């Protein structure tokens, strides 16, 4: 099967996830969308809705629990920050969503269309089944013909309407000279309806109208489940994209104006406040600060940025406000260029043939040959054209892939629903199958195994006065190291020293006066210390005394140790490959007990390492979050990124962890393996039914009743088996 001409399943796991980039539609005034990842019950709905409705200016707030979102109608002067603050007070985590990005998922017209066809097929099937029962229980002659004619009147329009999705897919497959599952399905439905109509007109004994309808019904059911799983994943993926509201603060004649990024022009000046992501590629014009590039390069240490420094979209500004002259925005940023490269790399993985495709490839020609063989055999044996055609068609109907059509979607729906409730989002349809095959797991460090937020080390080793001074100075800064220091000191009961004239020197540190002396907390070079020391550290200098070093390590992501234990328990080899310094990588690897680790890896090294592992015959799961991981994520057999990852990394990965916790990795693997096992079992069940049904059909004993029974029982068994999924 060619890569390009696969409209339905594998055509693009990437476009399922690729967030659309609309030209930032003008927002409807007063319509706000919030993401509420923490809500789960009636009490939450009530608290959130009551809390929001009680705010002055809010007209209506409506929670959607399925999507974990709230839509709020409010006056134009109400901002999302107000609502988020209120929800925070009530104890709910909330994030603003970009309504422009989210709008596409609000109406799921394709899903409703399928549901409509499913309902018509179901209604028609029940009525025709009732009429058929009369025939099966012995209606004769005129009564039987009447029943058949009424059935035809219901079934033909119903099939023409309901089975359209199959016909359309089959036609497009045939016009590309391929066979897919929809070809035998359409053929069986059309032949069953046509042959039954002919038999009815000839007052024949057997009409398969009910079979044509129940085939349509069950298969549409499978199709709908499939669609729903995908739609949930798509809307959640878009939600992640919408979390990054594409706005920038633009300088217009000295005034700060909030502008959508799409409306920025090259040469505009934007202000990047401390703590904010840089929205564009550009050159710093005014201001000094430190920039956290962990997401782009994996470096855990911030770098200095001053006038004429280049900054890139996706980097985080830490300490001082910067005015940046825009050199590239939106699709032209380095961030997007790299993401585009990843999209190309993705197509390589699209060649993975899913279990369903493999089954269809073996199955479709098989049944057609079988039907032809039945026709030829009976033609030779009896010479009766009508009889031979009837038997051939009965064979096609009875072998129609009812159970096969349900085998995969029923299991995937059960599995992805289960994982979604645990905060795991499957973006790719074949992610579960591929995840089940892995034997090696490669982790990135910064932002994946660690949170990228520093944690103070060896607090007790320092003199109390130093700590008290450092804590006082750190309290005046929003730099991550300073905040970690202040937090750790406060937790240890250190009372900050009484300092005066405290001021932050952006890009360098904090300075103050204490007892007539100048005290400084900040970069090594600023306080006159040896800058060569490795690892995240900040320095304290009192007067002209030699500076004191404070060490930090990266805080581990919750569940990292459990996840690694679970993956090892499942028989996987665990590796750590990072772009960070040797020391930092070794420290993290030691804490987690990972023996195989590599430091200082460039993005190409990571991808190359994974390809090398593939050549050795390993199937690799890559877990990463940064732009420097995207190549590796795309190259791996299957890839996972946390929700905090950069957009490009999430696009490149098959699975996104919506919660910050890594513990679920173990569950993912277990669910993936048992889901794949269930899918195989389902194929086994479907094959077993066919093994019994085919000889009966070939021998000419197949009746509409037998077909109805075989179809229903096999479909139900397959669905029940899918529900057994742990």
């Amino acid at each position, binding site marked *: 099967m060619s890569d390009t001409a696969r409209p339905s399943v594998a055509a693009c796991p990437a476009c399922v996830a690729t967030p659309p980039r609309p030209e930032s539609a003008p927002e409807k005034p007063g319509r706000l969308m919030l993401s509420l990842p923490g809500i789960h*019950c*009636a009490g939450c*709905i*009530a608290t959130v809705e009551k809390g929001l409705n009680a705010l002055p200016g809010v007209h209506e707030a409506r*929670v959607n*629990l*399925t999507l974990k979102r709230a839509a709020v109608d409010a006056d134009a002067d109400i901002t999302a920050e107000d609502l988020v603050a209120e929800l925070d007070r009530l104890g709910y985590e909330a994030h603003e969503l970009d309504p422009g990005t989210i709008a596409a998922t609000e109406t799921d017209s394709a899903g409703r269309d399928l549901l409509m066809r499913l309902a*018509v097929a179901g*209604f028609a099937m029940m009525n025709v089944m009732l009429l058929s029962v009369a025939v099966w229980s012995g209606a004769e002659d005129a009564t039987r013909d*009447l029943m058949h004619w009424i059935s035809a009147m219901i079934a033909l329009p119903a099939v023409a309407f309901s089975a359209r999705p199959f016909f359309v897919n089959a036609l497009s497959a045939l016009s590309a000279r391929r066979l897919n599952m929809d070809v035998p399905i359409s053929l069986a439905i059309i032949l069953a309806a046509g042959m039954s109509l002919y038999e009815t007109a000839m007052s024949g004994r057997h009409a398969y109208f009910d079979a044509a309808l129940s085939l349509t019904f069950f298969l549409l059911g499978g199709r709908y489940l499939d669609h729903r799983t995908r739609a949930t994943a798509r809307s959640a993926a878009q939600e992640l994209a919408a979390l990054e509201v594409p706005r920038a603060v633009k300088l217009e004649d000295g005034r700060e104006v909030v502008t959508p990024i799409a409306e920025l022009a090259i040469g505009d000046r934007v202000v990047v406040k401390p703590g904010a992501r840089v929205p564009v590629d550009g050159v710093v014009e005014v201001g000094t600060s430190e920039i956290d590039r962990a997401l782009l390069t994996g470096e855990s240490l911030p770098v200095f940025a001053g006038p004429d420094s280049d900054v890139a979209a996706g980097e985080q500004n830490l300490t001082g406000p910067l005015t940046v002259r825009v050199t590239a925005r939106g699709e032209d940023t380095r961030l997007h260029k790299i993401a585009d490269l990843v999209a190309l790399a993705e197509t390589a993985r699209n060649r993975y043939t899913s279990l369903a495709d493999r089954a269809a490839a073996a199955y479709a020609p098989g049944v057609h040959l079988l039907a032809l063989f039945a026709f030829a055999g009976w033609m030779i044996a009896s010479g009766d054209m009508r009889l031979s055609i009837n038997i051939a068609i009965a064979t096609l109907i009875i072998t129609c892939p009812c159970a096969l059509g349900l085998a995969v979607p029923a299991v995937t729906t059960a599995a992805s629903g289960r994982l979604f409730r645990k905060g795991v989002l499957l973006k790719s349809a074949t992610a579960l199958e591929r995840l089940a095959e892995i034997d090696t797991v490669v982790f990135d460090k910064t932002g994946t195994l660690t949170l990228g937020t520093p944690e103070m080390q060896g607090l007790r080793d320092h003199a109390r006065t130093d700590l008290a001074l450092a804590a006082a100075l750190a309290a005046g800064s929003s730099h991550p190291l300073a905040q970690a220091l202040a937090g750790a000191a406060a937790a240890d009961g250190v009372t900050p020293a009484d300092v005066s004239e405290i001021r932050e020197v952006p890009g360098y540190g904090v300075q103050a006066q204490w007892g007539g002396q100048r005290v400084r907390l900040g970069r090594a070079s600023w306080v006159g210390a040896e800058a060569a020391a490795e690892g995240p550290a900040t320095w304290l200098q009192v007067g002209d005394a030699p500076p004191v070093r404070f060490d930090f390590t990266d805080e581990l992501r919750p569940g990292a140790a459990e996840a690694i234990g679970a993956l090892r328990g499942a028989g996987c080899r665990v590796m750590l490959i990072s772009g960070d310094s040797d020391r930092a990588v070794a420290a993290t690897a030691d804490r987690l007990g990972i023996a195989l680790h590599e430091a200082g890896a460039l993005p190409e090294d990571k991808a190359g390492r994974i390809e090398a592992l593939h050549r050795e015959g390993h199937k690799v799961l890559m877990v990463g979050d940064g732009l420097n991981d995207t190549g590796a994520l795309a190259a791996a057999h299957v890839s996972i990124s946390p929700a905090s990852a950069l957009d490009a990394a999430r696009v490149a990965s098959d699975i996104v962890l919506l919660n910050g916790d890594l513990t679920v990795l173990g569950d993912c693997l277990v669910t993936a393996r048992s889901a794949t096992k269930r899918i195989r079992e389902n194929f086994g069940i479907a094959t077993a039914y066919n093994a019994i049904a085919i000889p009966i059909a070939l021998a000419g004993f197949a009746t509409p009743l037998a077909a109805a029974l075989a179809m229903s029982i096999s479909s139900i068994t397959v669905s029940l088996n899918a529900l057994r999924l742990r």
Partner: protein
Amino acid sequence: MDVLTYLIPISLVLGGIGLAAFFWALKTRQFEDPDGDAQRILRTDYDEEPKED
């Protein structure tokens, strides 16, 4: 067998009503938030009287 002349149309009409009801529910977006609706039924807010605007 004359009874069939009544019963068959009746069964078709009843089924048709069910189908129409389903279409109506679909059109009025009653399947947008199944989880939320399942939880909302447990709430007491709306039981006494309709919520006033």
